């Protein structure tokens, strides 16, 4: 399973999101290939799921991946709930 964590530049907020997503997946006992990148790279990368925020989700509408929206990148509960719903 491939998951992309996406932000505007690809090295700050997406990396934080990735760290927290990896922690949550570990707790859930789910293994996945998690990467982080910016929006433009994400549009050209195939994946099963894309995790990002509301603002950037709009630009990724046409992507084949299922888009999961997280609003608070530091809220492990929110990340866990969103992942559980989607997976």
């Amino acid at each position, binding site marked *: 399973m491939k998951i992309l964590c996406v*932000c*505007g*530049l690809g*090295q*700050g*907020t997406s*990396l*934080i*999101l990735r*760290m*927290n997503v990896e922690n949550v997946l570990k707790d859930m006992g789910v293994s996945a290939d998690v990467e982080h990148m910016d929006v433009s790279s994400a549009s050209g990368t195939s994946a099963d799921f894309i995790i990002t*925020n*509301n*603002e*950037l989700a709009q630009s990724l509408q046409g992507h084949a991946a299922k888009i999961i929206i997280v*609003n*608070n*990148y*530091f*809220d*492990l509960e929110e990340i866990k709930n969103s992942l559980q719903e989607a997976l």
Partner: protein
Amino acid sequence: MKFLESGLIALDVEAPDAAAAIRAAGGLLVDAGAAESGYVDAMVASYEEKGPYFVLAPHIALPHAKPEDGVREASVALARLKQPVVFGHAKNDPVLLVFALGASSSEEHIALLRRLTSLLNNPAHVEQLKSASSTQEIEELLKQVN
């Protein structure tokens, strides 16, 4: 690597709008020698072009640009605003804590983000940052968090 060292925390910062808030936080990195003034311009330009995607949690913003825009050392500074400012994020406005990130392509970058994530993953820490009455209080809090 400079993670919220004493010259990098400012409280009661006045900023009329988001760009000013970003400049205030970015200015702390420049004053500490961790970034060049061009990096601050790039941080503001990034906000103007890509929007407030870096307001990644309620009331918390992490503006940044690319290492090649003028970072000398991986670093994080905090400017706590006197009055919260709207950045235009549908869910997480208004912003009170502005963490300027001096992005780097080195391993220090990851270590820095891990420390920041540990700090901000905990809602109690976030509350303390919002209500601390002095930079010393914040420095004490940081000593307790790894």
